[in-house]
């Protein structure tokens, strides 16, 4: 890899500068998270000490336990909190909704990923490899559809979903997330397909493949990094999405994880340590996935060079 940075200092200085830079950035990124994790292992008493204990003196798993154990708590009228009509009747002071919320998030995310692939992959192949009338129009259509801010989707979707009776139905989330993630997926996949040699396409078609077969048998196996990147982006976007879930889910049964977590922060009666524990739980799945697939992300976005 070319040395691109203008580091006109002695050869010995370059590694030192790189090290310094790396440490700074790593610190910037990790420090807040480390503090979150540390706080989640502190008891309420410890967490409210001044100055703060950077490392817990008496680490405890109490907060996490209360999340897992409180699952069976029942929603009663007395428990209901009056508040935003948007967030409806949830119970912020019990932890019981977090795990079901995460489960909902998971279902939605998986569904969105699968459907996204079904929609995006064929479209990306067509845009990348087939000359047809309406190709540029399709590309513009796809790009501009993401210019609309999510906010602008709120009102029309809300009314529509209400009319269809799809409120509190995870399906409404799946459909809207799908629509939100498809343009970006197509964008990534098209770029990657375009970088794969055209001659493979020709060879396959002369060998007897229809367009669809060419896609499935020849291009798809070669586009693996890109596919992984798309799956990652789609999964994480869907897992982390907040605004639309806020609109479409009124009851705890259908709420996804971000909504549940958000509900905790608006209640001042909750202990800080508990909130942090909830936060840690919420971030574990996406962080693990991201770290596991880190090498595919850059590879999937860069045009791959394939020899053949």
């Amino acid at each position, binding site marked *: 890899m070319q040395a691109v940075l203008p580091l006109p200092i002695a050869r010995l200085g370059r590694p030192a500068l790189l090290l310094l830079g790396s440490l700074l950035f790593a610190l910037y990124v990790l420090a807040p998270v480390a503090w979150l994790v540390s706080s989640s292992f502190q008891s309420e008493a410890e967490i409210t000490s001044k100055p703060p204990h950077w490392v817990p003196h008496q680490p405890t798993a109490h907060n996490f336990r209360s999340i897992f154990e409180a699952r069976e708590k029942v929603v009663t009228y007395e428990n209901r909190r009056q508040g935003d009509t948007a967030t409806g009747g949830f119970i912020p002071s019990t932890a019981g909704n977090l795990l079901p919320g995460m489960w909902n998030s998971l279902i939605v995310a998986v569904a969105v990923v699968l459907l996204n692939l079904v929609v995006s992959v064929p479209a990306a192949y067509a845009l990348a490899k087939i000359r047809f009338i309406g190709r540029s129009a399709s590309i513009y259509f796809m790009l501009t559809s993401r210019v609309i801010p999510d906010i602008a989707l709120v009102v029309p979707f809300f009314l529509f979903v209400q009319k269809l009776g799809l409120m509190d139905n995870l399906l409404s989330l799946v459909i809207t997330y799908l629509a939100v993630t498809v343009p970006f997926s197509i964008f990534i996949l098209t770029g990657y397909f375009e970088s794969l040699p055209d001659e493979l396409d020709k*060879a396959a*078609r002369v060998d007897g493949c229809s367009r669809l077969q060419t896609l499935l048998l020849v291009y798809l196996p070669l586009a693996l990094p890109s596919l992984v990147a798309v799956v990652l982006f789609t999964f994480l976007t869907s897992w982390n999405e907040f605004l639309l879930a806020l609109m479409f889910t009124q009851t705890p049964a259908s709420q996804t994880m971000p909504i549940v977590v958000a509900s905790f922060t608006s209640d001042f009666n909750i202990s800080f340590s508990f909130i942090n524990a909830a936060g840690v739980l919420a971030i574990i799945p996406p962080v693990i996935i991201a770290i596991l697939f880190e090498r595919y992300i850059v590879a999937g976005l860069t045009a791959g060079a394939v*020899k*053949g």
Partner: protein
Amino acid sequence: MARIKFDAVGKKYPNGFVALENLNLDIEDREFLVLLGPSGCGKSTTLNMIAGLEDVTDGDLYFDREVMNTVPPHKRDVAMVFQSYALYPHKTVYDNIAFGLRMRKHPKDEIDRRVRDAARRLEIEPLLERRPDQLSGGQRQRVALGRAMVRQPAVFLMDEPLSNLDAALRISMRAEIKQLHQAMQTTFVYVTHDQAEALTLADRIVVMRGGVVQQIGSPDAIYEQPRNMFVAAFLGNPPINFIDGRLARHEGALVFRRGELALALPPDMAQRVAGQEGREVVLGIRAEDVTEQQPVAAGERVQGRVLSKLPVGSDQFYELEVEGARLFFRLGKEVRHREGDCAVLGVNLNRLHLFDKGSSNSLVWH
């Protein structure tokens, strides 16, 4: 097994660019046809049309009297070898070769038999379980050949398959391809820009330029009887020498005249241009059509100052300045002149070519 016919076929792009214009071509069954020309001449376009990879915008394409314009490539019975081989990188050599047969749903044992046969013939049997990225260029090329061979297609298409190989390999592969053609008894359509390749391999050559066919004929016919200056110049290495001049009367005979240079036209040629003294023409002399043997008769004489000489192993190339024109001739090793010397060479008059200055067309062959 297949006669291919191009009937007034044209290819025009939406931005107005014309890749192919009014192509009329009949490809005989089992012939080895070479499409020859510089880049951008339309030869690859023509090949792709046979394969179905490019659409025909004008005219009709026939396979054995059936119009094929709208038939997609996977429904045609053609096989193709690409310049960059286009092997499937994620498949083994075996799977690469078997792919086309599997797509066409041949029975498994037959596929296995055919693949192994082809591998044996191409001497790549030990490579069957490897992947393309583990092969050398020459090996990949054989796999590409094998992939096309096993299909036993009606037409075999090859798009500059040897361009990526080194010189020695290229020569030996040419011979193998020729043998393959004999063995398979199928129509071969071969695209190249290398005229030596075309002359070696072809039964017939189609010379193309800028989307227009210049001449169709056997290698001999094209070489000996070029219909215009482009064809004359494109075939032959080193390229043919062109000299501007005029037709004139000299000592009672019709000659080509340029300054002091006067070459007598042979009788049949003189007959064709009879009565056209004064006409501006271009003379073509191939580098090998001269001799050092003395004495040289007056009407055959070409003399000039030696500008440079280049030994090329078995022969020498001499660059002569003749009446202000620079000409290259191929002479034997025994010739000894120095730069600046005046050399006198004898021209083989029967092998002269004469072209009209304006249109570049041959005044002799049509």
